[in-house]
């Protein structure tokens, strides 16, 4: 399912909803999550999962093609942990 399919399904399930509003709802949710992570905040959606950011220290990596050592800067990576309910539902529990 792509973002446009998600928007379409949302609009279908809520017939009174304008397509434009369905688009804005999805965009707003994703933007809020992104902005929260950019601030270093955590996003906890019980039953679905939680988004957070993790720090990765600077390290010396290697160009796999040439074997040459390259410095990799410290960075922040997004992380998602599946919620209990979704994890159970994925396994038919």
């Amino acid at each position, binding site marked *: 399912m792509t*973002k446009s399919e998600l928007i379409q399904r949302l609009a279908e399930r809520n017939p009174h909803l304008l397509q434009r509003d369905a688009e804005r709802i999805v965009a707003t949710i994703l933007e809020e999550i992104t902005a929260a992570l950019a601030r270093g*905040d955590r996003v906890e959606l*019980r039953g679905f999962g939680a988004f957070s950011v993790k720090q990765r220290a600077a390290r010396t990596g290697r160009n796999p093609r040439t074997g040459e050592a390259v410095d990799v800067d410290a960075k922040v990576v997004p992380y998602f942990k599946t919620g209990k309910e979704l994890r159970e*539902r994925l396994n038919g529990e």
Partner: protein
Amino acid sequence: MVGEQAVNDTITRAQLTEAVYQEVGLSRNESADLVESVLDEMSDSLIRGEMVKLSSFGSFQVRQKGQRMGRNPKTGEEVPILPRRVLVFRPSHVLKKRINDDPGATPEPMSAPSFASEGAIPEPDTSY
């Protein structure tokens, strides 16, 4: 957990609902239902085994894991971990970039060398 901070805020459905309410102009109740609806659509799709690809955000994919032996950390007893389905989130480049470009996400901002101090280095030495 590595690198996790306790000081930051936690965003929940309430804040997503408020943002949708502000942004779209529906009632708060309806906004809350629609936030739930979006999460439901995503969950249902994943449970069907579909991948959920949200451009400029990331993709969620279901992976099948085989059986392996684990250990009860408390008793040391060996127990089989049954085959199961797990969800993997792969952030998009756009999301990764946003998170690294915003200094708020970095608890210890890198002190970038200022041009003033750099410029000071090649100043001609006039002491002789």
